[in-house]
């Protein structure tokens, strides 16, 4: 690849020397603001040998169904071929770079760019161009013009229980080892049942995408920032729970077990003693915070984060897959697909729809996240090289699984893999 950066940019490039500590318990604010870091991320994180979440198999049920998505900021289309296979390509015409498909969803046999009518197959191969032989023997393309070399850029797609991941890299490891067995099991736990899409939430946040990627990995904030949890007794740090990661510590699940009533009352008392619990407020519709057990275990909260852009969330009976879509260093979109299951009863569907109140931009346990990220982004913008955030709950040093909730260890796991991908791991780095 051409190095288009100027000499000054190269001089200021991030290196392994940027890390104050090799266990990632200090993260320089520069990572959230520097445009050159962002360019590097588009190239190496979203354009490199990683797998990004792009959508769900169930969104394109029939041959010809397509949906628009993104790999980083690169628009892509995934669609279902005649043989049932899902194909994906970069949504940028091989001719003049226009978006070939302008609609976000639809069904079609081929994809034709409006600009000069170049027509592509569902696998991105160029089928034909107008005036190839010219008009009345004049103009047209040279004889050696080869349509085979002017197809749309291919995106490799892998499906894990119907959850679709894409990559532009031919060197990305197989999705099975990228995710690891435990993370695949957490996907299976939800997506093994036939899924039904209930709708979408979108949110634009004035912050950096990584602040959101690490947010669900941070167990520390959940019951402190989101007062709704503690106030109405839905989820607390004192609950039995913990943190489970893949062997490379790039992905994680933060989980919590449903409690019986006696345990619940006891832990509410712990909160009262810490003066965190707000009051004895009650909901008029308690079902809003009620967990109806389903599935193979008693987890009432399980939030799976997959590097770099995916969060799969179960909060009580609200289930969703979130795609983080970066839009420059200072903005990102959260694109959230809310799901239920095809075998849900009408009552369960209503229960899930009611619990969508908990999540998304208006979510009673999620709206605070974007506010926290925006005020951190604003306040850290003017900081110099030395200033760094603190990530140390559960101790520094080794990055490892925990069977308690008061930790943010997997935030350090995120940064360790990020540093590896960017090629800036410090000497003696924890992994």
């Amino acid at each position, binding site marked *: 690849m051409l190095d288009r950066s100027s000499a000054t940019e190269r001089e200021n490039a991030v290196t392994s020397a940027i890390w104050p500590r090799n266990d990632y318990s200090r993260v320089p604010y520069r990572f959230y603001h520097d445009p050159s870091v962002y360019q590097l991320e588009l190239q190496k994180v979203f354009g490199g040998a990683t797998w990004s979440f792009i959508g769900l198999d169930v969104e394109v049920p029939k041959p010809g169904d397509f949906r628009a998505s993104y790999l980083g900021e690169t628009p892509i289309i995934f669609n279902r071929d005649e043989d049932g296979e899902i194909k994906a390509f970069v949504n940028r015409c091989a001719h003049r770079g226009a978006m070939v498909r302008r609609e976000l969803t639809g069904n079609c046999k081929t994809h034709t760019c409006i600009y000069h009518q170049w027509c592509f197959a569902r696998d991105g191969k160029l089928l034909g161009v107008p005036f190839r032989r010219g008009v009345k023997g004049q103009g047209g393309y040279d004889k050696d013009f080869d349509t085979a070399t002017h197809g749309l850029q291919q995106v490799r797609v892998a499906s894990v229980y119907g959850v679709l991941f894409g990559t532009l890299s031919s060197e990305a490891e197989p999705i099975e080892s990228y995710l690891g067995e435990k993370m695949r099991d957490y996907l299976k736990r939800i997506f093994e049942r036939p899924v039904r899409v209930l*709708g979408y*939430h979108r*949110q634009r946040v004035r912050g950096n995408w990584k602040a959101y990627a690490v947010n669900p990995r941070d167990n520390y904030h959940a019951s402190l920032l989101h007062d709704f949890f503690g106030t109405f007794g839905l989820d607390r740090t004192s609950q039995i729970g913990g943190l489970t990661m893949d062997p490379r510590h790039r992905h994680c699940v933060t989980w919590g077990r449903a409690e019986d009533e006696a345990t619940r009352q006891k832990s509410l008392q712990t909160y009262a003693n810490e003066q965190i619990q707000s009051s004895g407020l009650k909901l*008029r*519709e308690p079902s809003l915070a009620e967990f109806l057990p389903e599935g193979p275990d008693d987890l009432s909260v399980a939030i799976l984060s997959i590097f770099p852009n995916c969060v799969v969330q179960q909060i009580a009976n609200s289930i969703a897959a979130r795609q983080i879509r970066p839009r420059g260093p200072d903005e990102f979109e959260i694109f959230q697909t809310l799901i239920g299951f095809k075998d849900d009863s009408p009552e369960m569907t*209503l229960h899930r729809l*009611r619990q969508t109140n908990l999540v998304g931009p208006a979510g009673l346990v999620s709206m605070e996240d974007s*506010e926290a990220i925006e005020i951190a982004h604003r306040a850290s913008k003017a900081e110099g090289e030395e200033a760094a955030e603190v990530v140390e709950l559960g101790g520094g040093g080794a990055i490892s699984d925990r069977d308690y909730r008061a930790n943010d260890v997997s935030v350090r796991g995120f940064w360790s893999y990020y540093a590896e991908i960017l090629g800036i791991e410090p000497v003696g780095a924890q992994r």
Partner: protein
Amino acid sequence: MSADLLAVCSLLSDYGFYADGGKYDEWLGLFAKDCSYHVVPKENVDRELPAALIYCDTRGMLEDRIQSLRVVSKYNIHTDRHIIGIPRITTIGPDALLAEAPFSVYQTEQEGETRLFATGLYRDRLHRNGKGLRISQKMVVLDTFAVPSLLATPL
């Protein structure tokens, strides 16, 4: 101007005034005893998908929303300003009306910066009781479904 149109305009002007002023008891008072309130992204409406951003199918849930807003939610410190357009009214029963009105909400941050926060369409079912018109169902179809920052205060 017909009496119905005037009454609906008056209701909508109270609605925006109470919401922007943080007078949530008065705002709730514009709703009927049995009511629903949904904020739905236009893309879900267009694709006939049921999920909403705010889904209150009972008055209790709407009151829970307001209680959460007052007591537990943390959100950007701001002022809202509702600009509500002229409603289009259809009579659907002896004491029932369907009112559809375009709206926009501007948000102004603490340091005086204003942005267009939301625009869309209200689809309200209203009914008349002894005290006047009340909202029995309100559906806010949100054109601005890529919600800027977050949605806490009522649209």
